[in-house]
């Protein structure tokens, strides 16, 4: 009788222990399966979200060319179908990588995308869409986070050589050089007449070699300041590169701030007013012009009215900045040549993001997330080829860490 009781107790104990052990083991397998389903759902969401963003122009459809905020979010170019993205809607996204700039004269913060020192795209926060507003419009706030990245596929690099009259231009794609590419370039040479800067602008088209490179003979002398914009195209793939030969140690130059997308207004500010708060400073004289990107990716000059004037920082509020108006919503590049105390240079600003192939990074930070699903599409922005990539993560559910 005693041995039977002991047998029962041992058996029950062992059985319970084994049951608990197996529950734990099976639970782990089930957990992994549930996690797989969650991740799979996130990946599907990433693909859907990317298509939703890229294949809808938003509401209203032309919100990128106005100063109003959309009620529905989308980036497609309203004049086209398929994966053609609006150059202006992209400009109105608040960049998540550049340090924002505060400008005292307008008392506003600006979303900042600055490439290579003198190529600016500064959009005021009151015109730039922020991440939380976009997640609300997409209906994913508190459920998913995302980061959207648009990167130009073609890289056009411009390097100066020992000979100041020759620059080497190389075009390459994501995994291959753009051999025998057709390269159309615009050379803008800056000089000074009296106090005012002037420029000579010239256009030409050449063909690259099998490595995607070509040496351009440009009509400049050593010490000249110039800006060079090159469009490279081959077999339907188009990219753009730009280069300024200026003295980057020059402390006085012009910084363009976008003031209105609807009216095409751009404020030209004295660099000291933005970077260094010690007025007064010497005047910066400028001469603004706009080069229009035509359908065959050649550039045409469109002179601006009120293009020649000067900015003085610290001598009176009326000259703190100047306005120029870009009279078109066709993509192009605003070129501002400037001079101050016998130094001169040029700054560039894209009007329509694709015209200078500026990259875009918008949204949250995926590096802090436990699981991130990505997807990509090939798109065109103003005719320029971009890779659009989205990273999506879940903000709720099992084993997702929120920090």
């Amino acid at each position, binding site marked *: 009788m005693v041995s039977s009781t002991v*047998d029962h107790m041992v058996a029950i104990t062992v*059985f319970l222990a084994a049951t608990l052990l197996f529950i734990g083991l099976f639970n782990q397998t089930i957990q992994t*399966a549930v996690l797989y389903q969650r991740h799979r759902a996130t990946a599907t969401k990433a693909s859907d979200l990317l298509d939703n963003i890229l294949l809808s122009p938003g509401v209203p459809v032309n919100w990128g060319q106005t100063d109003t905020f959309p009620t529905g979010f989308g980036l497609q170019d309203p004049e086209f179908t398929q994966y053609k993205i609006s150059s202006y809607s992209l400009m109105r996204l608040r960049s998540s990588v550049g340090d924002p700039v505060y400008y005292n004269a307008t008392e506003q913060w600006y979303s900042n995308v600055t490439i290579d020192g003198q190529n600016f795209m500064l959009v005021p926060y009151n015109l730039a869409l922020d991440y939380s507003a976009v997640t609300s419009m997409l209906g994913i706030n508190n459920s998913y986070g995302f980061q959207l990245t648009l990167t130009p596929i073609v890289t056009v690099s411009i390097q100066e050589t020992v000979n100041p009259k020759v620059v080497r231009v190389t075009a390459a*794609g*994501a995994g291959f050089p*753009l051999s*025998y590419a057709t390269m159309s370039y615009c050379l803008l040479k800056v000089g000074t007449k009296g106090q005012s800067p002037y420029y000579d602008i010239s256009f030409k088209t050449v063909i690259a070699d099998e490595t995607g490179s070509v040496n351009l003979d440009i009509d400049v002398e050593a010490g000249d300041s110039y800006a060079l914009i090159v469009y490279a195209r081959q*077999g339907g793939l188009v990219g753009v590169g730009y280069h300024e030969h200026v003295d980057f140690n020059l402390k006085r130059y012009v910084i363009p701030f976008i003031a209105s997308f609807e009216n095409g207004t751009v404020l030209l500010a004295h660099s000291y007013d933005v970077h260094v708060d010690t007025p007064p400073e010497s005047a910066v004289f400028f001469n603004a012009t706009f080069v229009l990107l035509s359908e065959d990716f050649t550039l045409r000059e469109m002179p601006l009215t009120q293009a020649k004037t000067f900015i003085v920082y610290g001598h009176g509020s009326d000259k703190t900045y100047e306005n120029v108006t870009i009279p078109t919503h066709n993509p192009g590049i605003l070129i501002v040549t400037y001079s101050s105390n016998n130094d001169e240079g040029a700054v560039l600003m894209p009007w329509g993001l694709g015209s200078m192939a500026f990259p875009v990074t918008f949204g949250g930070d995926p590096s802090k997330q436990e699981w991130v699903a990505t997807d990509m599409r*090939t798109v065109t922005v103003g005719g320029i080829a971009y890779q659009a990539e989205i990273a999506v993560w879940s903000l709720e559910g099992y084993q997702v860490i929120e920090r």
Partner: protein
Amino acid sequence: MMRTIEVLIVIIIVTGAFIAVSFFAVLPWPRQVSPMNLRRLSFTTLQMLDSNYDLSRAAFETDNYTIWGGLQIALSASLPPNIIYNLTVYEVTGQTTQLYTMVDSMSNAESLGTTSDSSSYLVASSNVTFDVVPEKIGEHNGGGTLYILNCSDAYGWWITGYTSHSLAQDLYNLLSPYFSETVMVQSSNQFEQILNNNTLQGETVQDAVIINTCGEAVPIPAGYYATQGYVGGNYAKYCYILGQRVRQYNWTWASIVGYPLYYVSNTVLFASQHNTYGIYGMQLVGQAGVNAFLQGLDNKTYSHDNDGITSSSNNPVNLLPNIYYYCNYYGIYPSPSQTSTRALHTSILDDYNLNLGLDMFNRFDNNYIPGAMYKHIFDGDTDITGSLLALGLTRSPDIRLTALGILSYYQPRLYHSEYTANDTSRIVVLQLGLVGGA
């Protein structure tokens, strides 16, 4: 002891079950959990390559190594290095049992790796998709010459805002595809030659269409026509001779705005005379001009008649529905609402044996025709002996109305190429594969 053994047996069975479940319930690779959507990537890549129709061009010119090689470079450059591809072009035949025939392909790898997907894209040949070939006027029944008076020694009147030269150029662009020959008459001397039935470039003078771009004025050649056309102190007789020539050669005379033949112009001949408004090189004829022209057209005896046969009141008029049809057919869209200020009276139809070949606008006051093509046919005859297109509208002239009137009257056909014709469509299939680790 037996219970313990039974429990151990249960443990062994459950362990076996767990091992079996663990063996079969293999966790997928991360690539399978969150796969890159290769199908969408390949589709968007094809769309991007065709955004300026380069892909379409390459798909139809696979023998052209420059274009085909350019496509391969662009494709290689646009895809990330860990993605390999195979692009194949198929001809869409539709005539045989085999619907798709492979034309050519390119690839950067022998196989497409562990995971692959593809998408297809239909491209159309640029040669045929939008191709429209117009029938030439006179191609089947003689004539077919378009003369555009672009005389450098004559001024225009009521062509405000334009010059004769710019109007002539616009007319050339609009109408020359529809005519066998289009000749710009560059001077009054050349105009004299065709009035004398001499060709300028070997064209056919008979049955031609002549458009006077000088508006209310008409070029007058010095010499015979200026001499013979000057009777009783004005040049209405010259207009009579013009009417005769229009009848003799079965011309169609087009007056683009206002009064027809209200002035004559020759900057050399009338260098010291003006049109009563201070424009030298021009002489006033008045309404006697159109009366004389119609007399000549109807082979009546010339008599100077300055009585008005037009209404000079301003009246809004609209294009008639049949003209809307031709607007759509020829793709010419002037404003459908115009202002009539020099409409001809319907009495000319009976007085000069004229028939309406084409009515362009609604009439007003029941008796005035703002714009129409008049065919001259002698009573009891069926042959057309000269025509007049008179647009009695206000300045500035819309040259598209003249083009529309001529095309609506002659009705040359447009031959549209069929989009679905054989050998005009090809399918491009892009298959992408992933290489590298999981």
